[in-house]
Every structure is written in C-alpha cells, then in structure tokens.
C-alpha cells in the first residue's frame, strides 16, 4: 500500500519533469549561494583565528617603542631582570612573507605556533635553522633554511625561534614585547627601567576582527537574500505540485489511504527531494566559493590587510548549515500545503483554478505584515544602534517592500484596465491582474534582485567616485621617492630644492592619542595641500593654523572613534596640545591619523628624519632620470602618481568583485524564478486562453500579448525597485557603513546605471517569458479544442 501510494505520488514528477527540475534547481541554487557564502566566511574566519593565535595581537598587552620600530635587546633583558614578565617578538618581511620570531620559553599561553604547540616538539623548534609555515607560504620562502610545513600557521606568515628570525632579518634588536597576563607582586615602573618604551593595552590595538566582521556580515546578508530568492522558487513549485495533485490525493483517499499515512508519505517525498536538491546545492556552493575565494582574499587584504588563505577546505560548519537550512526551508514551504491537504474535505472538488484563489483576507494579512515590517524599519532608523540593528533594518525594509509589491501593483493594473478601450486590451489587463497571485512570488524575487543591484551599484559607484577624489587629494605629488638612508634623503631634499622642485617630506611616527593608536604626520604646508585637500568640516584658514603649529587636522576615523570634532583640544604629547582645525575624509583606512605642521613636528620629534618624499614637477620623467642617474636612487624606490593611483584603484575594484559576482547570481536566480512560474502557469492557462482563441485571437497574437505582459510586469517591478534600491543604498551608506567602518560615505545617484539595470531586468523578463510564449504559440489547436470537450 505504502509503496503503491509513494509510486502514485512520485509519478507526478515523472509526468512533470520541469517541475521536478524547478524544485531541485531552486533549492540547489538557494543552497549553493548560502553555503558558498558560508564557506567563504568559514575560511576567512579560520584564517583570522590562525593569525590571531600566531601574532597574539589584541590578546596581550604589549610593550612597544615610544618612537620608531626597534627595541634594544638590552631593554628586554633589563625588564626581565626587573621582574617584568615579558616575551620578545621580532618581525620583518622576507620574500613577501611576514617573518615572526619569538621565544617559546617565555611566550604567554595562547601565543600559538600551530602544531608545534600540539606536538610539543620544542627541542626541534629551538634547533637553529628552522622556520614553520603553511604549505603556500612555505613555497614562497627561499631563505636557505629548512621550512617545516604546519597547516595551522596563518597564511603569509612564517614563524621561527627568535634567534633564527633575527639572523634571517640581519637584526639584533626586537620589534615588540608581549606582556604575560599574570605578573609578580612587585615591579618597578616601565619608565624607570626602559624610558624608550611604552605599554600598549590589548584593547587599544586596532581590532581587525571588528572590521572584517562587517565584511562577513555583508556577505552573509547577500547569502540570506539569495537563499530567500531560491526559497521563493521552491515555495511556488511545491505549491503548484500540490495544487495539481489534489485530484490524486482525493483518489488515493477515496481508495482508503489514511490521512496520516498520506501526509507522512508526502513529507518523506519532500524530504527526499530536499536532500537531493540541497546536496547538489552544497556541491555547487563549493564551486562558487572556490571561484570567489581568491577574490575575497584579495579584497580582505586590500581593505584591511588581513591575510586569508586562497584555498578552500570542506568544513562541516558550512555544508551542514547549508543542508539544514535547505531542508528546513523546503519542509516549511511544504507544511502550508500539507496543512491544507489535511483539512481538505475528502470529496471536495480538485479546484484546478486554485491559483486565482488568493482571497481578500490573505491579501489583508499580507498588507498588515508589510506595513508592520516597514514601520519596524522606520523605528530602527530612528532608534537602532550597532551593526546588527543596521542589518535588521535592512531585512525589515527589504521584506516589507517585497510583501507590499502585489498590493502596489494591483491598483495600477486595475487603473489600466479601466482606462482600456478595446475589448482585447480590457481582456489583457484583466488577465494580467488575474495572473498576479501566481506570479507574485517570482515578482517579489525580481524586486529583491533589482533593488539589491541598484543598491549595491550605487554604493560601489559612490565609493569609487569618493575614492578617486581621495586619491587625487592624497596623491597630488607627481613623484614619490623613498631614500635608501638618511644621508641620501638629505641629499635628495637639498638637491631638488636647488633645482626649484617642490619637495614634500613624509614625516610620520606611530603614537598614542586619546588611548588610540594613531599615525602622526608632519606636513610641509603649501599649495599642494591647500588646493587638493577637501575637508568634511573645518575652521577658516585651517592650513595657516596648522602651518603655524597652532592646530592639527585629524582624519574622520580618529574623530569618530575618539569623539573629537573641530575646536576640540587634542593632547599630542604631555607638553603639546592643540585644537582641531579640520576633519579630513580618509576612506578605507582603519587607522587614526593626525596631521600637524612640519616645523612643530620636527621640534617635537627631532629623532625622526624623513625618508619618503613627494615631488611636484611638470616633467616627472626628467626628475626621475636625475634621481636615478645622478643620485643613485634605485628605480624601484620611485613611484609615479598614476602608477600608484592605478594600483589603488585596482585594489578597490577587486574589493567589490565579490559583491558584483553575487549580484549577477541573484539576478539570474530571479530570472529563473520568473521562467519557472511562467512555464508552470502556461499549462494551467490553456483552459483560460482557449475561449479567447475560439473568439478569434490568433495563437501568435496571444503569444505576443504574453511577452508584452512580462514586459509590463518587469517595468512595474523596476519602477517599484528604484525607490527600494535607493533606500537600501541609504541604509548601507549612512547606517551600516558608519557602524562598520566609522565613516559615512556621500551618496551619489547614477541614473544611467539604473536605466541600464532596468533594461537588463526587462530583457531578463522577456528572456524568461520567451519560451513559455513560444510554447503557447505552438499549442496545437486540438489541445485548445479539447478544453471544450473536457468536462472540467
């Protein structure tokens, strides 16, 4: 009995392979995007964890130099001998790999070196001439020492005993000291033992995790959106399949199959299909992630300097979550239909036109939910705080807008119907309105896809525009030169000044201001700065005050983080406090920056000598030739502005490759949803079209009208998507970006882009409608005639 029942149920899919395909493909696409995004996130997080363990950054208090980047080894010994439990770290770059040397005997627990910790092979670790790195990094290291492969070490980093790394880097000093969390009873003050050093609390280190979190949150939001679109497909497919099988269900029950058994069998059937679809989706997701991951790695490195392995591992966390969410989604989609079947009277009619049944009451509920969600979004704009609230706002807004779509579209169609004069056009509008319930899920998917596209396109383009302006501001000099040593630097500066070329030295130190790590610059105020720098806010004659040493300029990141604005005093050193004269936008830079005049900087930090210079010249090529031929500056030490700008833009463009790729995928999924809905509707619509055909409308004409209908729907959705997309952009730029990065991006509008997007959406709708329309045109007349012969 059970087997016969199951066979009867499954035969539906054999008769309707397209529905089977829609079900499996919808679920697979949804799962693929979700698990793909999860895979990327899991991979990146594993990389951060490894990096955090390897570097110990943010975990421990550290002792760092007051100025410069070097700690004398004697200072370390003196601190230990004074009772400070500190552990030395030396860092440097070799072959593009970050070398990290430490002392395993004194390092705090949790300052990990991968598997060395687990295997405990410390004798080997201390044996001279060994480095530890993961396989990728190991290949890059060609330093003449043995590299032990340890997959647990963060990408791009090689670790070794401090003695080994010092030797490789040709150093006899240290980079920083880690402070053990537990210290002995009595210690002298740090300043009494090592006045050149300062303590940096763990919490004060710029937290990479917070920045990268926002990026992953962004990705997760996209993943969820894609999943929602996929679930629309599954929901409508299941709905259709169950509608069409009402007859079968009635027959089976009339033959004596009990209701619980039938429900159980149908549930098993859905579960089976869901597992197959989700399994395919996980595989597909793996491919998506594998293709996107290298770009994500580049993005994160470009944005935050975070290293992420470019290779993908098959982690249980993401494939299991992908499977679970897909199966749950499918079951949730099916449960409504199963509930209906459970409450269907045994001998009720099969109701083949049930698609049109969306009752006034259901519409009312949908309107209430949409209104509630939009109200909630408005409330969050007003009262929300933090990234999570930002994304909650985004979710409420998008879902609310999607649910509101049919409610907005219906009156438009009714108005058009009333305005129509000819019988055919009146029928066209009435028929369009009649199809709305069946298509509304697919249209909502399209709305979400177009809105997301508009939103992300606006954000990326706004960002790019601002970024280019920022590059013009920051890279105003035609040439940048890095001198090999102080002597060469002095020579370059003197010689260029003699030739009448404006030289702008780059004077900078790392310091601590208002408990924030800050890069302090001393600039030679001149036309370059006055003309190119655009302030977010400033006092009059800001540059004059900075030049006179009477004021400072801070970047937006520092201003927001330390709650400073113009007019506030900032303590640069114990005897050096100045008011803030201007706030400068510093996009994409997580670090706080503070700018003072050159003279005041040199007074305060006489030990800092500039090694990098910007040069203003009309003839960069000639200056370059002088520098290389007459002063012996290495060619690689000179960068011209256009190269630097091009490189920066390249980093930027790669940054958003991921978002672009996900956008294309979302639109594709939405197009697929329309195609599937139309294809399934096409079969149902034969009985509705037959009378029109019988009245004299040709099949060709009916097909054309079908295409026009798709265009009408797409156009209406596009029109509605524009405000939704712009709202989405506003949330991204003005709320989420400020929460995630600490700066607000100016929003620009790009009507040409929106028009192009609208065109793409229309084309997608036409493409999706073409095949169903073609099938309609080719419906054999006898199939249409049969409608009148059938007793339905």
């Amino acid at each position: 009995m059970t087997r016969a029942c199951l066979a009867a149920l499954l035969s539906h899919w054999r008769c309707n392979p397209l529905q089977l395909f829609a079900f499996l493909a919808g679920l697979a696409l949804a799962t693929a995007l979700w698990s793909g995004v999860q895979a990327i996130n899991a991979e990146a997080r594993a990389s951060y964890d490894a990096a955090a363990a390897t570097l110990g950054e943010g975990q421990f208090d550290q002792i760092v130099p007051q100025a410069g980047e070097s700690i004398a080894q004697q200072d370390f010994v003196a601190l230990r001998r004074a009772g400070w439990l500190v552990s030395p770290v030396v860092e440097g770059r070799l072959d593009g790999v970050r070398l990290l040397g430490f002392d395993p005997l004194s390092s705090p627990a949790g300052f990990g070196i991968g598997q060395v910790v687990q295997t405990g092979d410390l004798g080997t670790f201390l044996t001279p001439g060994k480095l530890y790195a993961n396989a990728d990094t190991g290949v890059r290291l060609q330093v003449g020492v043995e590299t032990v492969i340890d997959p647990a070490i963060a990408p791009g980093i090689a670790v070794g005993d401090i003695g080994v790394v010092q030797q490789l880097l040709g150093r006899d000093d240290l980079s920083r000291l880690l402070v053990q969390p537990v210290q002995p009873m009595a210690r002298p003050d740090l300043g009494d033992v090592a006045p050149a050093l300062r303590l940096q609390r763990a919490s004060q280190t710029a937290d990479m995790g917070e920045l990268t979190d926002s990026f992953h949150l962004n990705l997760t939001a996209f993943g969820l959106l894609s999943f929602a679109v996929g679930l629309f497909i599954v929901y409508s497919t299941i709905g259709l399949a169950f509608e069409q099988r009402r007859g079968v269900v009635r027959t089976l029950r009339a033959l004596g199959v009990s209701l619980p058994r039938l429900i159980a069998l149908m549930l098993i059937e859905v579960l089976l299909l869901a597992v197959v679809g989700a399994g395919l989706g996980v595989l597909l997701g793996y491919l998506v992630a594998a293709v996107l991951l290298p770009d994500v790695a580049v993005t994160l490195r470009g944005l935050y300097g975070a290293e992420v392995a470019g290779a993908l591992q098959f982690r249980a966390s993401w494939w299991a979550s992908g499977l679970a969410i897909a199966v749950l989604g499918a079951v949730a989609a099916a449960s409504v239909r199963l509930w209906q079947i459970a409450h269907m009277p045994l001998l009720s009619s099969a109701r083949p036109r049930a698609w049109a049944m969306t009752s006034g009451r259901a519409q009312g509920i949908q309107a209430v939910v949409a209104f509630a969600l939009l109200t909630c979004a408005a409330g969050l704009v007003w009262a929300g705080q933090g990234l999570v609230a930002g994304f909650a706002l985004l979710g409420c807004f998008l879902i609310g807008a999607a649910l509101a779509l049919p409610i907005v579209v219906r009156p438009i169609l009714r108005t058009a119907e009333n305005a129509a004069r000819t019988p055919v056009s009146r029928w066209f509008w009435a028929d369009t309105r009649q199809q709305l319930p069946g298509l509304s899920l697919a249209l909502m998917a399209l709305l979400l896809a177009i809105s997301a596209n508009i939103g992300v396109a606006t954000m990326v383009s706004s960002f790019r525009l601002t970024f280019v302006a920022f590059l013009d501001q920051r890279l105003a000099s035609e040439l940048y030169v890095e001198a090999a040593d102080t002597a060469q630097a002095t020579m370059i500066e003197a010689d260029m000044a003699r030739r009448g070329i404006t030289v702008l030295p780059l004077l900078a130190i790392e310091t601590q201001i208002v408990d924030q790590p800050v890069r302090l610059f001393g600039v030679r105020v001149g036309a370059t700065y006055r003309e190119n720098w655009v302030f977010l806010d400033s006092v009059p004659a800001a540059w004059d005050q900075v030049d006179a040493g009477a004021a400072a300029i801070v970047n937006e990141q520092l201003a927001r983080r330390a709650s400073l604005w113009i007019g506030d005093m900032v303590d640069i050193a114990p005897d050096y406090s100045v008011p803030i004269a201007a706030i400068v936008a510093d996009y994409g830079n997580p670090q706080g920056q503070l700018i003072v005049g050159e003279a005041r900087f040199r007074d305060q930090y006489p030990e800092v000598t500039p090694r990098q210079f910007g040069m203003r010249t009309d003839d960069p090529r000639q200056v370059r030739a002088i520098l290389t031929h007459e002063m012996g500056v290495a060619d690689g030490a000179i960068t011209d502005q256009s190269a630097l700008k091009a490189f920066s833009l390249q980093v930027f463009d790669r940054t958003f490759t991921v978002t672009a790729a996900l956008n294309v995928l979302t639109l594709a999924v939405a197009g697929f949803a329309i195609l599937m809905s139309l294809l399934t509707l096409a079969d149902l619509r034969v009985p509705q079209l037959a009378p029109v055909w019988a009245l004299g409308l040709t099949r060709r004409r009916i097909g054309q009208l079908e295409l026009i209908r798709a265009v009408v729907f797409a156009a209406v959705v596009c029109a509605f998507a524009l405000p939704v997309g712009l709202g989405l952009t506003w949330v991204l730029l003005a709320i989420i970006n400020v929460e995630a990065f600490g700066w607000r991006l100016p929003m620009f509008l790009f009507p040409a882009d929106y028009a192009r997007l609208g065109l793409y959406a229309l084309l997608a709708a036409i493409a999706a409608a073409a095949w169903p329309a073609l099938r309609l045109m080719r419906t054999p007349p006898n199939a249409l005639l049969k409608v009148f012969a059938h007793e339905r």
Partner: protein
Amino acid sequence: MRCSKCLPMNVKVLILLMFWPLAALAQGFAGLGSDAEGFAMPQPDPQFDFPVDHGPHPDYRIEWWYLTANMQAADGTPYGLQWTLFRSALAPGEVDGWASPQIWFAHAAVTTPDGHFATERFARGGLELAGVQADPFRAWIDEWVMEGPDLDTLKLSAQGPDFGYNMTMHADGPLVFQGQGGYSVKSADGQASYYYSQPFYRITGTLMLPTGSVQVTGNAWLDREWSSQPLSETQLGWDWFSLSFDSGDKLMGFQLRQRDGTLYNASTWIEADGGTTAYPDGAFTAEPIVRSAVAGREVPTTWRVQLPDRGVDAVVAAMNTNAWMPLTIPYWEGPVTITGSHSGVGYLEMTGYE
C-alpha cells in the same frame, strides 16, 4: 602557582623531556635513559675546585642549586621555603645569544601550616637572563637572586603573583659531600651524579604573603648536583629526605622506586661538626604510613624512616599535606616534622606520583 597555566604546552613537553629526575620518571625515561652522547659523565673520586665548582658546568646535561629552609615566626608558627635554579642543556657547552643550548628554569615556594604558594620561571641561556657566577657567587633568573661574596654569606629573593621573600643566610659549618666524596650513585647499574650540600645555613628574613609580611628565622639546606645520565630506565620516582635533628645531627636519605617494586636507596649521616658517613643501598628505609589526597592523587605524607646503624626510627610527617607544586612539572615538596627516636624538622620531596 597560577603561572604554570600561563605556559604553553610546548614548554611543558620540553621541560618534561629535560627535567631530571621528575620528568624522566613521569615519562618512563623516554628520550633520556642512558643516552648521554656528547655530554661529560661524572667519574668516581671527584676532585672539586672551589669556588669554580659552585658555578655552572655546561658540558653536563643537568644541574641544580636547590635550597630549602625550615623557619619559625616570632609567635612560633612554622614556615617552609624553597628556591631552586635548574640548568638543562639541549647540547653541551655555551654560546652567546639566542643560539645558546642552555635552558634555565626555577621554582620558588613558601609553605605555611595552612597554605602553599609556588611559582616558576623560564629563561634562555646566552643573554644574561639567567645564570650562575662562581666568584663572587651569584645565581639568578629574572629578578630572583641568590648572591653574596661567597657561598657562605648569601642574600636570597624570589616572588610570584601572590607571594615573595627576601632572606639573608650565613653558613656556620663546612660543605658536606654526599656518596663517595661527592660521587653519588643513583642505581645498581651505576648511574651517578656529583652531589654536595651546605646544610648549615642560618636564615632570616621576610616572607611576603597575601595575609601580610612575616619575619622568620630558621635553618636552610643547599644541595648542589650535576650530571648527564643520572637514572636507570627501571626507576619510577623518588622520595628524598633532608632531616635536621634537634641533637644537631642531620640525615640525607633518598629512595628510588623501581618498576619491579624494589627500592634503591642511599643516605648520608652528617654530624653536627660536619663529619659524614655514607651508607650504601639497604641501610636506610622509608615506609609510607599515611597517604593523603593531594591534587587529585594519593601521596604519602607520613613516613616511618629508619637508619638502624644510628638508632634512627622516626615518624616524618608533612607540616602541610597540601604542599603540591602545581607547576609545569608537578611534584610534592614541603617541610616535615620529626618525632620518635629523634625529633626535629626537615624537607621532603616526592616525585613520580601520578
């Protein structure tokens, strides 16, 4: 004591491999055993050269400066104190800088009747972070020191997160050579170490405890020992006693517990004037009477100790049974009181109780 948790696992394993005898016993001698290639070996009939031999011997694998003290406060409350500096070499010899194969580590502890505080330190050789200098004498790791013009007059200090001490010591007796003139045999197979002691220190100073500072005075005992291949593969752990009787006589006795259940022991009777008599295996016996649950295991904390040749039949009981050293290498070490045929105080060290 908290500091053992600050140390990474790798250090624990390293020290397990190197720390003789505790680690070797805990590990069933993996890696240590009788392999001593490259390292110098103790030879019978040693000729010591002082003060040079108070300093380090980097050609030997392991070495220690091991001080314990029994003390009293003015109100009669007894206290115990430990200060130990270990040297362990990955390879023989010394090199300047991080390439040094010498590893130093140290333990410090204070035991009160109802408390026990312990901590440890680690340092690399070759950088002046830790070391020993013979003349004037100076042994140190980080800020911990044991130093003075010579070995007879010393200042001693150490501290952990919750305790510390500053002491001065003066020896009023001669050095005592254990075993055969300082050549101490550790098994029937002939494993041996160089071993001498200075058990005649008077010690006075201040203990810093969470409850406040305490002035104490008492007696201290310094052991010096170095070797490369001290134990046999069949030995599981050891029980070591340093006992100071009220009569002025002293007794050092240890027994090594072997896999087959038998014991290997050795002892030295030290007269009040420093005259010594070394006893071979079998003369000294120590038998557990009471075991206590300490740090999740059973450890004997009251012993019957006998040396019939000197009429010793005494009960040796822990002053505080919880004198567990929860360090990278855990073991039991604490002050004891002696009753029975003789009375007095002393120190007990027990290793290999898993």
